[in-house]
């Protein structure tokens, strides 16, 4: 009897698991083109309201870099019905937390509130989609704030310019060439009308996804969405999207950068297919073989055994357009030359390209992938962002439920194939990010 009971409880655990991994949602379009995704979950009396606009730094004019990120700031300045400086306060004073971020491909605004404040959050997001306050006062204020942010997060932070150097060299034609923080100079040069044009072009309902997730009543939620967002006019212009073809590296490209950092770092970037492609999934598995966990190859060989590195990593940078970028990085231990570190990293890359990968190692990584999938939907804010991203990039919201399968479809042979194909010495950029003292030694 006891044994029977046990197996029953195991069975329930298993069905629970299967159910938990299926994220239920409904989705529809308003006549003005706004895509709406609703996800109901009553575990905690909170609601997440978020909007993802399909605009990032890649949509910018090369002479106006930093615009998309600047807009992220501007959108907190207020609206016709929300006073300047009130946006943050209003959310907080009603028990919520909020933030926003900008990438190369999209801009994301999100707030988590007690569920009885859902209507307020919907009203506030609709306010800034309809008529955000874009005027000289707000522009002036945010110009200063963004400059301080640049100092804090990039100029004054060790390795703060690393990504900027990598992208500048990895992309010569595609607007992935510059980072979302962009250039302060361009923001200073821009006229007020340019900000308004940007808003009218990109901050339109037909370029946005609204996600409402959590302790909601979908019928009520739909009514509120219709009320607040239904009257917002569809954008009439064409939304410009880059269609530039980035040339292949052709041969190894090398770049140097000197900064106030304690140790040299080496970054190797390989062009790979864009996210969502079969080969990109295989590359992610490969990257985990190289650097996922304490027993991964780079960690064991470079950090533990040879002690040449203080930290190593390999990952795909999530980019919507082709080509994507897979990166390998290492920070040199004290007294280790950057070139020497690269040699040791290359030895590991050569191994995955030329020697078979064991089944056990492949399965270990598949287990890690499965675990990280199981974890990522633990919080409502995470579920909401995954829903928004899946729709924005792939127009396939259900990818949140099927993506694990894509990883599981990758075979050992696929991993070996992509290693040979993409980790090619002629398909790469090498960046040496070195301490300033190495630039002017003997001072």
């Amino acid at each position, binding site marked *: 009897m006891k044994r029977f009971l046990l197996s029953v*409880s195991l069975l329930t*655990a298993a069905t*629970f*698991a299967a159910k*938990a991994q299926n994220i239920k949602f409904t989705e529809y379009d308003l006549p003005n083109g706004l895509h709406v995704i609703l996800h109901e979950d009553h*575990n*905690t*009396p*909170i609601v997440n309201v978020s909007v993802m606009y399909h605009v990032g730094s890649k949509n910018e004019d090369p002479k106006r870099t930093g615009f998309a990120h600047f807009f992220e700031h501007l959108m907190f300045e207020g609206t016709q*019905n929300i006073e300047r400086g009130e946006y943050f*306060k209003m959310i*907080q*004073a*009603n*028990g919520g*937390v909020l933030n926003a971020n900008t990438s190369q491909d999209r801009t994301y605004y999100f707030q988590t509130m*007690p*569920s*009885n*404040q859902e*209507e*307020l959050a919907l009203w506030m997001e609709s*306010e800034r989609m309809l008529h955000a306050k874009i005027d000289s006062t707000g522009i002036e204020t945010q110009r200063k704030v963004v400059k*301080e942010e640049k100092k*804090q997060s990039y100029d004054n932070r060790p390795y703060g310019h690393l990504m900027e150097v990598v992208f500048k060299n990895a992309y010569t034609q595609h607007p992935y060439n510059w980072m979302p923080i962009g250039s302060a100079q361009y923001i200073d040069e821009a006229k007020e009308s340019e900000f308004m044009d940007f808003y009218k072009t990109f901050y339109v309902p037909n370029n946005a996804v609204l996600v409402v997730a959590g302790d909601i009543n979908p019928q009520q939620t739909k*009514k509120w969405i*219709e*009320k*607040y967002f*239904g*009257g917002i006019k569809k954008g009439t212009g064409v939304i410009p999207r880059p269609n530039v073809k980035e040339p292949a590296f052709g041969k190894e490209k090398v770049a*140097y950068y000197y900064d106030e950092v*304690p*140790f040299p770092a080496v970054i190797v970037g390989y062009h790979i297919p864009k996210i969502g492609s079969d080969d990109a999934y295989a590359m992610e598995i490969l990257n985990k073989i190289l650097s996922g*966990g*304490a*027993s991964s190859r780079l960690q*064991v060989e470079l950090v*533990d055994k040879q002690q040449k590195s203080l930290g190593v990593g390999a990952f795909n940078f999530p980019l919507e357009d082709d080509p994507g970028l897979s990166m390998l990085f290492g920070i040199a231990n*004290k*007294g*280790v*030359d*950057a*070139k*020497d570190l690269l040699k040791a990293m290359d030895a590991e890359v050569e191994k995955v390209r030329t020697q078979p990968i064991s089944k056990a190692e492949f399965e*270990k990584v598949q*287990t890690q992938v*499965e*675990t990280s999938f*199981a*974890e990522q*939907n*633990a919080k409502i804010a995470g579920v909401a962002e995954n829903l928004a991203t899946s729709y924005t990039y792939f127009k396939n919201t259900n990818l949140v439920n099927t993506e694990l399968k894509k990883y599981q479809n990758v075979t050992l042979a696929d991993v070996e194939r992509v290693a040979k194909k993409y980790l090619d010495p002629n398909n790469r950029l090498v960046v040496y990010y070195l301490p300033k*003292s*190495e630039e*002017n*030694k*003997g*001072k």
Partner: protein
Amino acid sequence: MKKIILSFAALALVTGSYAQNFDRSIRPKAGPAPEIKLADPQTFTLPNGLKVFVVENHNTPIVSYSFQFDVDPIIPDGKEGLDEFIGSLMTSGTKKMNKQQFDEATDEIGATLAASGAGLYGKSMTKHQNRLLQLMADALMNADFKQAELDKLKKQSKAGLEQSKTEPDAMLGNVSKVLNYGKHHPYAELTTDASIDNVTLKDCNNYYSTYYRPNVAYLAVVGDITVAEAKALVTKYFGAWKKGTVPTATFPAVTFPTKTTVDFVPRENSVQSVIGITYPLNLKPGDPDVIKTRMLNEILGGSGTGRLFLNLREKHGWTYGSYSSFDNDRVIGHFQAYAKARNVVTDSSVNEILAEMRRIRDEKVDEKTLQDMKNYVNGTFAIGLESPQTIARYAINVDLYKMPKDYYKNYLKNVNAVTVNDIQATAQKYIKPDAARIIVVGDKDEALKLQRFASDGTIHYYDNYGNPIAAPTTAKADESVSVATIMQQYVDAIGGKAAVEGLTSLSSSASMSVQGQELLIVENIVSPDKYSMSINAGAMGEVQRITVNGKTGKMSGMGQSQDIPEQMLGQYLEKANLQSPIEASEYSKYTLKGIEQVEGKDCYVLEKKADGEKTVAYYDKNSHLLVKVVTTDEASGQSQTAVMSDYKEVKGGNGYKAPTKMKVQSPQGAMEVIVNKIEANKKIKESEFK
């Protein structure tokens, strides 16, 4: 069915037209407040005393096991920092498997496993939990500490310590602990290079076998598991864990300040001051005043909507952030109001922080501010409950701190009951602008301006370990002393004018050891304008080379070569001119600032600004030798300090002396340079400077 669809369409029509006709300026009102349910975790205790709390949450197929040890360990005197090593040692191999096997086993199941001096945390998918528990039990009961691993950790710890010695927030933290609790209080124990050196493998083993005992442990099991399953698994894996007698440190009584003092920690070349206004606090977890101080703190300086932030950042723009905090603790806690401000506004910032501390005592806060803060606390409390770990933590706190059973259930009720009168009464009880320590880490030139805040009219100076030091003031030099007389005495001290005048060349080789890697630095000079330097790293050969020949210079390394920018060339030409100490045109670029102490010795301070760089040179008043040089890049505020010693006569130099030891502290860390060989007036080939 059709009817229903029709009515839906009708509804859509109605709402559609409704959408066109409403006043957008009306803010939606909140719905009825949702009920916040705080689940009770299930709990049981194993016969060995392990207390287990289980919170079921089947949203994801993940389970986590978190051990927390209720210990106040006794760290032997002189071995501070010992507890920092235990966590890493525990997960670096056991009697059954070495580090690599242990890591491999953890990754195989995609688990997270991390340990600290007072805890162990593991997480995996439910289906892999048996393996995870095996590993955790192995780490808790059968860890096998290895000397080599300890040596590696000690090395890492020292590297971190080196950085923190000049890190202003770390300096403030150290000094605050010592001044608030007293040097011999366990809460004020500070790790030093010496205390790290003193830690032995035996100490670590003792600590491990003494404190990692089930009878002082709490285990939170959270996630996709039932209580019955948890009980069976925990019993299976931790039932054999043996009880032990666990000693507890004793805590000396703390002295509360009765007046406000100013305690200054000088930090060379600071561009910002770090300010902490602080005092010890007798406020224990579970005390009814804790919730009141939380609300008080939210208004005073809890976040970006607190008064400190609004005043110092939003109104004055002096700082990136300013906050306050109440640390409640069952032994002794503390209050702190904090800001990081530009040098010139150090005293103004202190003034405004004290003013805000007084204001919240003297004036009632308005109802709306308090209500907004209550809403914020209510909302974030609910958001926090989304994570089942929060529920486990609350339950453990109740047991650990002997709080009322319903403390967290009544938390929001008690938050909502706080009145503006309560805030003022609480402020008058706990906010003490007139019995506090104003601790500032910053440039010594800012110190005297803080005198007006000190009830005793004195600035007390401390080093970064909270030891009292003499005032680092610049005394006036004697009328008869000038840059010229200092340089003359210096020249006499390094061998006399004739020797310096006669110097034609200098060649030296020095070694520098950085974490086991030996670097060799070879320098060649032909006065007045030829200079070369090469850095060799053992088997790797030459990694960097600089050559200067008259008006041009080159630097190469890493297979790259470039011309030296003009503004940098000056520094090398200055080095190349061996006669500069006797040339008035050179030394007159310096001005005499006065007398300061370097390592307890009086020194003349000379300062020069050129090419965007500030150079401060210290000449010993008695030996007349140059003992310290600080260079600061004026744009970035980054500085480098070199301390010279062991002056020795140079071969072939007719009595000329040069330092043979140099300690360099830079943003990249600290290093020591030892000169092995140095020779003067030797013929150096022209090709050396090409």
